[in-house]
């Protein structure tokens, strides 16, 4: 347990020294500034267009617009967190095995799984900080400008965190077996597949095409990222939007909690596989 902690601290320090944290921070702040300015402009426009300012109708319109823009912002944040998760872990094991850095580490009195778990823990911490900054900043920016807060905020953000963790863990598992570029190709290939599968499922749901829905569920089982995201948007969607069914963030075919449990299981299995492959590998 202690060795895991030592390795996690070292991984964290590496991220700081290699300016990964700094880059994430600077670009993250830039993202929030641009997002806030964009939100301000659109929100002002909407507010002046709704001539019945101060009425209940205006309030609903403003909330709908805020909800839409917030989900758009969080969608970008979720994607960035996924990319961050993949990039952090894609090269970590493969790179250290390739360079030989790993040789003086795994010949110390520790379990090889300590190395995998230590790195995982550090990346999980980094992703939590990143998401806290990005999603926290996005939500607060919307809240301070419009007074709008989406429902089920905490569970939704937890789901976005789960999505990023899942990609990071999957990428770590790949990294224990194949080089970084192959890992990157694999992770984003599957991410894209899950994305398009999600849309097929959505459109299938509109036309009540059961086969299309099944295709979507199948891709979610293969890689549950899009399913987790859609569950998160379902949690946050406004009651009005759900009735209108007119924005890309309205979820028609809702992934159930079983799918979320599956995603958690998927993550744990990926972590177990990473440990197992790393344990038996020649270095």
């Amino acid at each position, binding site marked *: 347990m202690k060795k895991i902690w030592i390795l996690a601290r070292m991984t964290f320090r590496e991220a700081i020294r290699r300016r990964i944290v700094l880059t994430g921070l600077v670009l993250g702040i830039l993202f929030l500034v641009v997002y806030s300015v964009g939100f301000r402009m659109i929100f002002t426009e909407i507010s002046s267009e709704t001539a019945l300012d101060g009425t209940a109708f205006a309030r609903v319109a403003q909330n709908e617009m805020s909800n839409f823009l917030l989900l758009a912002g969080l969608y970008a944040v979720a994607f960035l967190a996924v990319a961050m998760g993949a990039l952090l872990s894609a090269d970590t094991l493969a790179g250290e095995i390739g360079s030989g850095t790993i040789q003086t580490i795994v*010949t*110390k009195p520790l379990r090889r799984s300590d190395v995998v778990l230590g790195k995982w823990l550090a990346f999980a911490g980094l992703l939590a900080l990143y998401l806290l900054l990005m999603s926290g900043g996005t939500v607060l920016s919307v809240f301070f400008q419009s007074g709008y807060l989406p429902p089920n905020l905490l569970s939704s953000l937890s789901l976005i965190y789960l999505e990023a963790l899942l990609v990071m863990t999957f990428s770590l598992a790949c990294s224990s077996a194949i080089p970084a570029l192959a890992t990157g190709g694999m992770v984003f290939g599957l991410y894209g597949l899950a994305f398009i599968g999600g849309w097929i499922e959505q459109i299938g749901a509109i036309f009540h095409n059961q086969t299309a829905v099944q295709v979507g569920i199948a891709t979610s089982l293969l890689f549950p990222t899009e399913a987790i995201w859609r569950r998160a948007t379902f949690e946050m969607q406004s009651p009005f939007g759900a009735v209108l069914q007119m924005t890309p963030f309205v979820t028609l075919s809702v992934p159930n909690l079983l799918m979320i449990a599956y995603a958690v299981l998927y993550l744990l299995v990926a972590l177990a596989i990473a440990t197992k492959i790393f344990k038996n590998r020649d270095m």
Partner: protein
Amino acid sequence: MSVAAIETEQLKKIFGDNTAVKSLTLQVAQGEVFGFLGPNGAGKTTSIKMLLGLVVPTSGKASLLGAPIGDRATLARIGFLPEHFRFQDWLTAGEFLGFHGELLGLEGQALKTRRDELLERVGLAPFRNKQLRTFSKGMLQRIGLAQALLNHPALVFLDEPTSGLDPVGRRLVRDVIHELRNEGTCVFLNSHLLSEIEVTCDRVAFIRHGEVVRDLSLASMDGNQSVVTISASGLTAAMISEMRRWGRDIQANGEKLTLTIHNEASIPEITRYLVAQGANVFAITPSRLSLEEIFIETVGKDGGL
């Protein structure tokens, strides 16, 4: 009788269809400085990696300090400087030793003291706060050596420890090995620099295609054994056969006689004998058998390719 530092029995490693190590059987005693010699591709590094648990053997058995390879408690008593050392170059020299010390279970003041002691020993104390990315190859080798000694190991593996070093650095490594020997540490040295091996090792094993082809105690060749070339006329068959008293591998070719003698002290005796028997001696030239000659004789001029 204490357990052997290293004991292997028919250790074998096959990568795909390439046999890296065919059948390695060797024994190294505790406190011994052992040289592991062989041409490139003979399986030296793979052998070390198997012993340290980095590579899983295809078959065979091995133990370090009495415990089967891969035993975690034993790894706490072992030091290792890899051949292609690549370290966390974003760390400073001090942090690097601190990190590896922590992995070995050292902490607090004990770790700090040991870290400072070793930085001093390898001559890097002034660079303790410099990141490893700024280090030269020789400096990295020194910090790697310090890393291998953090835990006062009972057994140290040094894979090509002097490959990046200048003469001063090599001298340092040699001195460190001498100190380790005096402390009773077993050193397993893998090197191409035969002159280094010659002055530091007690015993060497030559390996070729992953098998020990010769095991040689350097104590027994302590400089006295040499090949003597005698130029003389009037040599008789009786004189030539009499040479067996002082040496072996006797070869006569006209006025040239060569033999390997056990002791250079017998050269004056040989001279007196030949003169007394009526031979005309023009020259007697001793030449020491170097490890390099033994190496080439053992593994072949092709280097075992």
